[in-house]
Structures are given as C-alpha cells and as structure tokens.
C-alpha cells in the first residue's frame, strides 16, 4: 500500500535520551527504548505519567525538548513525512467528523495517506473490522464503540508498519474491549504491524502484549517481555501486583 520502506535493520521504534518539558516542567526524562518489528508493546503508567506525550513525539506531532526518537529508522523531527508514511495513529477521545459518514471520513483520511483507491480501502477495512454495516451512517449518530471502530479503521486502512494506540479502550464496554483486543491481535498477526499501545488496563496488557514498559513520573522504570516479567515476579499473583510493586520500588 502506501507505507514507505523503513531503513534497513532499523528497529520499529527507537528512543535515545528522550526528554520533554512543558513550560520548564519535565514530563519525560531521558527515555531509552528499543521496540523491534512485530512486537505488541504495552506502555503502562498512571494518568500524567507522560504516555500521551511519548506517542505525540513518536507520531511527529510534538518536537521533543531533547534526545532522539526514530520510527522505522526515520527521525521524528527531521524526517517527519517519512515517519508519518509508516505509521497509523488512534488518539484518545478522537471524534472524527460528525457530519460525514464513516465511509466518507475514511475516504478523506485515506486520500491524505495517499491510498490510490480510498473508498475501496475504507470498505475493505470496515469489513475486516466487522463494521461495514454502518459505513453509510453519519458518525454523529454512532455509539462510542462504533466510533472507536471507525477511528481504528482510519488508523489501519493504509496498512502502516507501526500502529500507535493511545488508551484505545477508553469508553468501551467489556464486549468492546474484547473486540478491540481481537482487532489488535488481527493487525499484528495478519498484517504484521508493530503495535505501541498506551494503556492502564493491565488485564489487556497481559492478554495482548508481547512486551511491556512502565513509565512513572516521566521515567521508564521497566521494560521486558511479558514472559520474562511473569517469570521474574513469579511470587506475584497478577500483573497488577507486579505493576504496583515496580512503582513502589521506583518511588
């Protein structure tokens, strides 16, 4: 499709000494992180920990104060267009265009991504996400779950190499959360996407992610695979306990 080639042997995501401040208030401190292609990375942290800021930098929407961030080998500041050709992004609380139908919204975003036949791609993606039936309804009439599916469709319709999901389960009911989990797995297994997911739902991280990172007050305090994490903290009954313990240690 339209995703441009990544740099040879470059990891999907690479952060080196990344820091960011808002009005001299530090939100990210010296983050170093490498995520390989094909991973589903769960980025955990409390509200205000800096998760959304990290995604904003990785999607080239925000310039970091210092340090370096690369996606598919491209620098997020100096090679913004190359980065954005390789990514899909689902922000939290996105509302899309209420006056347009789901298909029209996707057609517009598909054209912006440079898809040759955007309407066909939109319908194919909606079919893949099992929501083709409401393609012709205006987004303003959608439920939260329907809206979220169409928002996911806009993020994946151009088949990006790396998909960023920012709190994708916000506002979804339990069945919506389960459907989202299936979608994430589908994108990873069938389409080979690397997925970077901000979340605070530990149960979802345990079920979906291959690797986790924990951000606490702007610092990356932990990063490892799910298997290694459960091995290392085998005394803990659940991921929630592990997470709380890591935070306690950091504090």
């Amino acid at each position: 499709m339209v995703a441009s080639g990544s740099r040879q042997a470059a990891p999907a995501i690479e952060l080196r000494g990344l820091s960011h401040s808002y009005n001299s208030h530090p939100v990210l401190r010296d983050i170093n992180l490498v995520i390989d292609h094909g991973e589903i990375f769960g980025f955990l942290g409390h509200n205000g920990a800096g998760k959304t800021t990290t995604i904003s930098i990785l999607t080239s929407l925000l310039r970091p104060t210092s340090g370096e961030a690369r996606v598919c080998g491209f620098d997020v500041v100096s090679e913004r267009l190359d980065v954005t050709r390789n990514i899909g992004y689902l922000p939290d609380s996105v509302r899309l265009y209420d006056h347009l139908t789901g298909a029209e919204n996707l057609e517009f975003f598909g054209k912006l991504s440079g898809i040759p036949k955007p309407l066909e791609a939109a319908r194919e993606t909606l079919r893949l996400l099992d929501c083709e039936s409401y393609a012709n309804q205006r987004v303003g009439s959608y439920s939260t779950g329907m809206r979220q599916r169409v928002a996911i469709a806009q993020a994946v319709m151009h088949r990006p190499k790396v998909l960023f999901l920012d709190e994708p389960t916000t506002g979804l009911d339990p069945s919506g959360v389960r459907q989202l989990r299936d979608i994430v797995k589908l994108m990873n297994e069938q389409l080979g996407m690397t997925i970077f997911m901000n979340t605070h739902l530990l149960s979802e991280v345990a079920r979906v992610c291959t690797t986790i990172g924990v951000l606490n007050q702007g610092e990356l305090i932990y990063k490892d695979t799910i298997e290694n994490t459960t091995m290392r903290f085998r005394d803990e009954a659940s991921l929630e306990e592990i997470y709380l313990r890591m935070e306690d240690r950091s504090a």
Partner: protein
Amino acid sequence: MITLIAAHQLRMLRRERLFLAILIALLLMTALAGFIGWSSHNTIVKVYEESSAMLASEGKPAPPDPFALKPPLSFLSNMTIYIMLIGALLAIIVGHLAIASDRASGSTRLIFARPVRRSTWFIGKLAGVGSALAIVLAASYVLSIISLVIVNDSLPTAEEFGRLALFYLVSLSYMLLFALVGVAAALIVHGRSLALLVALGIWMIVTFMVPQFTSGLRPTASLNPVVNPVDTSQRFFDVTSHFHSVSISELYRDLSAAILQSAPAQSDSVGSSEIVPISAILIVLVLLMAVLVNRLDLSEQASHE
C-alpha cells in the same frame, strides 16, 4: 493534496446548518434587493406616467423620465449593505468552521499524523474558504442578473455585466477579510464558542463602531439645515477624519457605490484609495495566519465543547 483539503472543506460546509441558514438569508436578501428595485421602479414609473398625463392634459410639458437618469445597476445598491452585514457574517462562519471543526474534533492530530505539511493544510483551508465564498457570490451574481432583467426589462449590457462582476469580486475580497478573521480567531482561541464570539466582536467593531468615528460624526453637520451646527475644524475631527482610510466597511461601501454608480464619485481616485488598504489588510492577515499555523500545537486534544 491542497485540492483534497479544499474539497473536504466544501463537503463539510454543505452539511453545516448554520452555514446553510446564513447562505439562504444572503440569497433571499439578494432577491429582495432586486424586488425592492423592481417595486420602487414600478411605483416611480406609475407616478411619473400619471403626472405626465396630468401635465399633458393641462398642455404642459412633461419632465424627463427619472429612470433615464438612473444607472441600471444602482437598483442593486442595497446589496452593499447585505454583503456588509450578512455576507461578512457568513464569511466569519466559513472561516471559523474551517479551523474550529478540525480542532474541536481532534482531527488535526489525525491529519498531521499523516504525510501532510502545515503549509499544505493551511493553503487547502484557504482555498476551501475562498471557493465556498466564491460559490455563494456566484449564486448571488446570477440572482442579481435575473433581478436586473426583471427590473429593466432587458438584458444588461456587457459593461453592466462587467461592473456587476467587479462588484462581486470586490465583495469577495471584503468577505475574505472576515473569513480570515474567523480563521485567526479559531487559531488563537481554543474554545470554539469563544473563538466565534471574538470574530463576531471584531465584525461589530469594523461594521458599526469604526464608522461612528469617521463619517458617522460628520453627516449631522452636512444634513442639519442649521449652518455649521458643529465646528468640524476642531482637532477631534482632524483626528477622526484619518480613520476613514482604515474603516474597511466604508472603503468597501465607497468602492461598491462607485462600481454600481449608485452614488456620485467622491473623487477621481475612487478605486485605488480603497483597493490598496483592503489588499494590504488581506495580505497582513494571510501572513499572520501563516505564523499562527506554524505555531499551532498539533498534539492538542479534542475539546468537549
């Protein structure tokens, strides 16, 4: 990409109720301007014919037909007022929606997480706004021609077609000014309602307040039968007289009057003295917009207004 963003803008506007309501009001007023012209024409002709017949029965010569002295386009002089009021409002709405709908829905993040440059987005938005206003004024132009045909009972001449087109071109520039005010307010002010209020406040100042400091003070002196009721040689009037060159609504009104020949030209220089300030303000506003777009926080979240 610019065309895509502009076309998207037009598609959004087509479904925006507020825009459609004001558009319908403007077109109705255009038709009304024609109707008022037609109605006053009929009344005056009727009175003229009755007077002529009465004078003829008394063996007196009839005065010349008043309409023979009146330029045909002057029937549309009310259009100037409608553009200043409804047209400018419509332009503010179009400019406001171009930016505010993206910001409020959080779509700017979706757009700029794609290979889209800020400049492309901005030029596309301006092209969309300009096209929307051009389409509105084209419809109004056609309605005006129909009104002229009805009032004058003949097709306008090539010169009249040209003058009317020029009037609408000037009106487009005037409306673009207000569209840019709507764009600027939506870029600077984050709250959607507040941004619209700010733009409307500027419209009120330009349309109603500034003219009060310029010509609004002087007609009292010129219309009052008492000789020199106000001494306009005072320093106060010296200062306020300089405001005329920045009173955009008055510049537009004077230029329109000269084009439609609805008022005698104030001076030989009518044209450049109005076009230069209007163009200068347009250019300054576009440059200001470019700076604002460059500083726009692309990572901002959707507002829940």
